[in-house]
């Protein structure tokens, strides 16, 4: 009988071998399929007096050729590749837009300043003024359209986050379902359910393309899945779900929350890594925010410096003074968002420092003017430099020289902003105190009350804060985005567009000498600063040369009560307006915020005047100053120009795009290697299966022959008995 039984075991084993080979062939192209192998062993032999007699073969198990380590390597590489891929797909959109010779900012910026130069050359020409208005409108439209495309990217990220979250939830649910089937199936026969496990592994692999997950195999055969730093996505047969919800800090952007039963908790974006979800979130918080803020920073710097210089001028209608000159650009205020979970009802508003400071002495000093209080502030820009305040500019110049040994050069200076491209978080620290954190580098200011905070950040960050209403509670916070929406909101003032004569191309002061002067003395006007008091029509500031004085100098009329600073090559000296100002050729003289020089050889009684620039329609001096802003150090604390800042943005985005592409390509190579290792072990090779087919076919034929031999032997026995 043992002949027959051994034959049957061999037949069985060969049949299972054939079936498994066919299954492998059938699934050669199935994604996530691992080839299967029949595990075969000899049956327990029969112990006889003649020794152990073999009892044929048995099939222990059909197992998949699967290496958990390699599979997890594939998943790790895949999740990083997907993250970088999603990041790259998005950032390349910004990259292409910024440097586009037609769509980028550069051409519009150049056209605008070209328009300014044209007006400077022909200040009285209506067509030139109209052309400047048109090129200014083209510039703000360009800002708006670039911002629009960035806004579209924000919306697209929101949409993709929502759909990715949907994909993650669907995969999590399927994994939970397969967990259920595996637990039931394997409990019944105590054998691994290869194909179900393949399917589940494939779902985990797909999940990893969306977000990085970690898994733990449970003893009942189920697989638990975690995201972030241990948030449960699938536990056994139960799946939690992710939701796309508005961020607490900034409700305008969608972020990810985890729903567990009835509670939803926002997951910090920093702990979501891997997969397209992390790619999208990182793209938004690194590149998109940076590009939008930088664009806002450039537009805000252009608008604030241009407006400040424009305010110093005189328009074609004869208007003079910051209060009467129309702003050239209409600007918005920094954006402030209260945190959704704030307990109190405190409100915070932020304001740009306007006019922004002036850069003096090639960037060694800045001069700020507070329009409300009439106070001048001089800051030494080197780190650790001092700060000096005063309402009398001329006296302040002397103070600064005494303190630093350096003479303030008022003959040339330009406006600049201290704005950064960062967002800020303001946290209420109790009492009247707040702490401000610059989010780009986590530099913090305070805790201090707002007035103290403002004196600090007004000089270093370019904006100030106020708390107009409400009472905050401890730890209430506010997100401040100074430049985020500036480019979207910038516009040309309608007063300018409706009447280009209101472009202030002239300066309100004229330095001249009457025809009666006999000497060769000359007066040359140099500059004026915010808060300057230009002479009213018919009331010039007059300097009369007194050759008999010791030393010879000028007596002053029309500047009663103002102090007069005289800056020579060696020192600054302050005189009362009643004093005789000694004549030093080419010394810079500053009175009421206006600076000028005397030169030549004046004669006794010669007069020099600073007078109102009545009917000065051909004067383009302020337009020239406006035009110079194009190439001056107007941004980032007087260290870079508009164009360089834009070049920096292009280069930053370009570098980021390049970096992401290079890492993605490298990661792609790693992924291919891991996949090759997986395929080398677990993939189906059809030639190999063809060989196996032949092998098992022959084994089957041989087993059948055993049965045949057994049968014949039996027949022999029967024939003997007959």
């Amino acid at each position: 009988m043992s002949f027959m039984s051994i034959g049957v075991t061999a037949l069985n084993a060969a049949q299972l071998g054939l079936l498994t080979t066919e299954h492998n062939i059938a699934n050669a192209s199935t994604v996530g399929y691992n080839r299967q192998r029949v595990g075969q062993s000899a049956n327990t032999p029969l112990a006889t007096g003649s020794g152990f007699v073999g009892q044929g073969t048995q099939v222990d198990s059909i197992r998949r050729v699967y290496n958990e380590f390699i599979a997890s390597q594939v998943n790790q590489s895949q999740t990083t590749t997907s993250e970088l891929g999603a990041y790259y797909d998005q950032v390349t959109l910004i990259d292409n837009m910024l440097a586009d010779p037609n769509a980028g900012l550069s051409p519009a910026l150049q056209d605008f300043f070209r328009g300014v130069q044209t007006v400077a050359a022909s200040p009285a020409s209506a067509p030139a003024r109209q052309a400047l208005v048109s090129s200014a409108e083209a510039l703000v439209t360009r800002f708006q359209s670039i911002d629009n495309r960035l806004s579209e990217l924000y919306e697209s990220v929101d949409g993709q986050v929502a759909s990715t979250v949907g994909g993650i939830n669907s995969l999590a649910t399927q994994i939970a379902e397969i967990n259920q089937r595996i637990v039931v199936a394997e409990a019944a026969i105590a054998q691994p359910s290869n194909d179900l496990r393949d399917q589940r592994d494939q779902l985990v692999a797909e999940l990893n393309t969306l977000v990085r997950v970690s898994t733990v195999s449970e003893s009942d055969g189920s697989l638990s899945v975690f995201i972030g730093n241990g948030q449960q996505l699938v536990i056994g047969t139960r799946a939690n779900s992710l939701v796309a919800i508005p961020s607490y800090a900034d409700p305008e952007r969608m972020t990810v929350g985890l729903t567990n039963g009835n509670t939803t908790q926002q997951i910090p974006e920093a702990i979501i890594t891997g997969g397209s979800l992390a790619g999208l979130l990182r793209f938004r918080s690194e590149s998109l925010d940076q590009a939008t803020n930088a664009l806002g920073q450039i537009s805000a710097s252009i608008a604030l410096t241009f407006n400040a210089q424009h305010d110093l001028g005189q328009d074609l209608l004869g208007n003079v003074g910051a209060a009467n000159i129309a702003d050239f650009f209409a600007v918005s205020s920094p954006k402030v968002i209260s945190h959704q979970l704030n307990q109190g009802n405190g409100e915070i508003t932020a304001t740009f420092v306007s006019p922004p400071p002036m850069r003096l002495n090639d960037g060694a000093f800045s001069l700020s003017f507070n329009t409300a209080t009439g106070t001048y502030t001089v800051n030494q820009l080197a780190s650790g430099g001092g700060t000096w305040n005063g309402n009398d500019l001329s006296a302040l110049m002397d103070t600064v020289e005494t303190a630093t040994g350096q003479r303030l050069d008022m003959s040339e200076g330009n406006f600049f902003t201290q704005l950064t491209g960062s967002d800020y978080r303001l946290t209420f620290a109790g009492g009247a105190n707040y702490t401000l954190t610059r989010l780009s580098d986590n530099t913090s200011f305070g805790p201090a009350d707002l007035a103290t905070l403002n004196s600090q950040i007004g000089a270093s960050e370019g904006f100030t804060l106020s708390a107009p209403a409400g009472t905050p509670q401890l730890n209430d916070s506010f997100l401040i985005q100074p430049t985020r929406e500036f480019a979207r909101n910038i516009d040309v003032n309608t007063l300018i567009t409706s009447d280009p004569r209101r472009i202030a191309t002239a300066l309100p002061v004229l330095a001249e000498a009457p025809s009666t002067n006999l000497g060769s003395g000359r007066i040359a006007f140099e500059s004026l600063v915010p808060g300057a008091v230009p002479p009213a029509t018919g009331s010039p500031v007059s300097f009369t040369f007194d050759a008999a004085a010791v030393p010879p100098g000028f007596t002053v009329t029309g500047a009663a009560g103002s102090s007069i600073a005289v800056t020579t090559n060696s020192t600054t000296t302050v005189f009362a307006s009643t004093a005789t100002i000694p004549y030093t050729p080419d010394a810079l003289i500053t009175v009421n915020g206006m600076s000028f020089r005397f030169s030549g050889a004046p004669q006794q009684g010669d007069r020099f005047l600073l007078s109102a620039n009545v009917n000065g329609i051909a004067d383009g001096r302020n337009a020239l100053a406006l035009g110079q802003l194009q190439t001056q150090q107007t941004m980032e604390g007087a260290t870079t120009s508009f164009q360089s800042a834009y070049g920096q943005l292009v280069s930053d985005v370009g570098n980021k795009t390049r970096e992401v592409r290079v890492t993605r390509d490298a990661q792609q190579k790693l992924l291919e290697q891991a996949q090759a290792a997986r395929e080398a072990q677990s993939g189906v090779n059809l030639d190999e299966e063809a060989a196996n087919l032949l092998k098992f076919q022959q084994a089957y034929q041989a087993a059948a022959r055993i049965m045949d031999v057994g049968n014949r032997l039996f027949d022999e026995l029967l024939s003997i008995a007959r």
Partner: protein
Amino acid sequence: MRVSTAQIFENATLNMNRNQTDLFRLQNQISTGRRVLAPEDDPVASAQALVTTQSQQVNKQFLENQGNAKVQLTMAETTLDGVTNVIQYVRERAVQLGNGALGDDQRLAIATDLQQKFDELVALANAQNGEGLYLFSGFKGGTRPFSLAGNAATPYNVTNPSVSFNGDGGERVLQVEASRQMGVTVSGDDVFMRLRNDSGVNESLFDVFQNLIGIAQRPAASWPGGGAEFGQNLATSLSQLDRGLDNVLRVRATVGARLAELDSLETVATDLDVQFAERVSNLQDLDYAQAISDLTRKQVQLQAAQRSFVTISGLSLFNFL
């Protein structure tokens, strides 16, 4: 190493894809002529190209401003040349006046001629540019700078002017180079109004002309000291005319110096323009020889990949079963 069948196919597709991507990129570069298609290709060069392009544009603007300045200064120069001619003519006539043989009638005829020249001088002093702005009125471009004061000759000087100046001392300037703002007008005050006479009072060129006309019109018999005083007055006029001429020539020298400066600035700016263009081209333009050779190489690679794939994918044990 074991190779799975699926891997053979996947690898081949992947490699052919890569070759095609490279070819697409090369083709794009060749058809646009640009090496840098997006900033990621060369972030540093992209940023530099932007900044250099601005420098080039700004330089072009300076060239344009220089042209503009040249036009305005040439206009001033031409007008001042006219003024010079008028003064020289008047001076010749003044010398003729000193000819003792002339009678009152003849001097009156000269006076009429001088009055013509006076009118011509006022017209020149009130010259306008192409935009209709007065050349010598300073910032008050729309204000006619010189008008008859309507005073009686006692004689004329700064306190009793024949012509008053309504302009101002403003000098219109243009940005002709990064660090150079050039005045493109000269003050009418400076050209015409400030001729200091021997008694230490300023006279205008107009006053000098009118005072001379007064001398010419006055009958010989009415001079109190006879010929001596006439001669003295005429000599004063002549020396004032010389001062006026010197003054105009001094201003013309300033204008001439500026025009010469503009010429050299223009040479520099034109050179710079070429350099900027070359720099931008170096930063972002394509090396065609390199690109074409790359294209050919990639093409060969792709063809080889395609051919070998077809060969390998045809091999299977099943073909023999």
